[in-house]
């Protein structure tokens, strides 16, 4: 239960970090709340570890009217306290325990890409993006990858060996828009058996003009379903009609020791209705 030996690199600036990564193709260490358990259990044994905790300029939360940009070193607790995005704040309260959130990073959770994790679903439902940097020739090169291309498979993101995710961008909810995150866990703070994140926009007459959900724990990546047309142009409180079935048809739950596939499918039905109802209610009362 001790980590295997590795060569340790602690660059001080982004250029040095990217050059080191280009050279050694090591694993990036930020908060370490997923990586270090994997090292301790010897599920991973990277030859090189590139610790970015001392890299200047990778922290911080930048808020504009259009959205929130979160730096690679921003801890879960820091973003939770900042309270700059209602859906993110809701989702962050569901991420592990407060003590883990003091250390774990938001961008780290995205790159780790656990199919049962909350933050990938938030990025996916909002159609956010992740900025990835690499060293090419004699300078850094950056690219923005949209959420639908970022999550490639279970525990696999679009970040390639030698690259570093430097920030993530979460678009704002917009006017008359509400959001909710509902999940079922065996114990408080555990990874969810299943979870549903919903964003609903209504017009002045409380009719739904946009509704999207992202499901976790029931597919290799967050499953995003646009359910705007599923309820017709019905009033928000009627949105939960056949929508659950539509979402249940799109997921690919699996059996494991925690729950059967059919139970997970059942949960997604219940949670979809609950999340849409709560998001619609928030939208009707003026948005988040």
């Amino acid at each position, binding site marked *: 239960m*001790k980590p295997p030996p590795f060569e340790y690199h*602690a660059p001080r600036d982004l250029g040095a970090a990217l050059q080191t990564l280009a050279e050694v193709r090591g694993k990036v260490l930020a908060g370490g709340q997923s990586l270090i358990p994997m090292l301790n259990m010897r599920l991973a044994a990277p030859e090189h570890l590139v610790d970015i905790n001392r890299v200047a300029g990778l922290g911080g939360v930048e808020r504009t009217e259009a959205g929130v940009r979160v730096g690679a070193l921003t801890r879960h*607790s820091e973003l939770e306290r900042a309270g700059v995005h209602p859906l993110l704040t809701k989702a962050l309260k569901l991420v592990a325990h407060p003590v883990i959130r003091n250390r774990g990073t938001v961008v780290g959770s995205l790159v780790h890409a656990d199919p049962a994790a909350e933050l990938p679903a938030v990025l996916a439902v909002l159609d956010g993006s992740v900025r990835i940097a690499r060293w090419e020739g004699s300078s850094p090169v950056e690219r923005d990858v949209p959420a639908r291309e970022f999550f490639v498979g279970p525990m696999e993101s679009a970040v390639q060996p030698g690259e570093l995710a430097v920030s993530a961008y979460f678009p704002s909810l917009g006017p008359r828009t509400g959001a909710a995150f509902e999940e079922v866990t065996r114990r408080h703070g555990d990874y969810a058996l299943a979870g549903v994140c919903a964003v609903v926009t209504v017009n002045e007459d409380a009719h739904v003009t946009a509704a999207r959900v992202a499901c976790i724990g029931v597919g290799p990546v967050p499953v995003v379903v646009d359910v705007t047309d599923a309820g017709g142009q019905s009033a928000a409180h009627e949105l939960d009609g056949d929508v659950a079935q539509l979402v249940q048809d799109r997921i690919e739950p699996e059996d494991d020791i925690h729950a059967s596939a059919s139970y997970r499918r059942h949960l997604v039905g219940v949670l979809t209705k609950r999340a849409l109802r709560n998001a619609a209610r928030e939208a009707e009362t003026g948005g988040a």
Partner: protein
Amino acid sequence: MEHEITLVVNGAARRVSVPARRLLSDCLRHDLGLTGTHVGCEHGVCGCCTVLLDGRPVRSCLTFAVTVDGCEITTVEGLAGADGLSPVQRAFAECHGLQCGFCTPGFLCTVTALLRDNPAPTDEEVLEGVSGNLCRCTGYQNIVKAVHRAAELLAEEA
């Protein structure tokens, strides 16, 4: 390869040479002889190894010592003042908030930070606050009581 690092542990600067893979929990216990920090699961689930890193509770088993070079660490040994046990420690003793004591160092560090940030937590806030710490003896009821009692003691002494 060994790395020379300096940790400010319970107010005293401690210089130590560690391999990169040394967990902060092992550095505290083996290199610095501070065995008050307990190690249970070593993958971040049980919370026994919780210490304060620059004032915030973190899992020392999920932190490399080299990463926190130059930081301030408070362990359970550093909670008591010159005049004896801290209010949180006294409340745990008074309310029977421990039995075997294995999980207690983690609870004490977690609760010390919890009450500093939120001096009068509700039951729900206490449960959320200690949700990352496992105790197999007490059934938690007396731990929750101890947190409320500690809040009272801290308020009296403020």
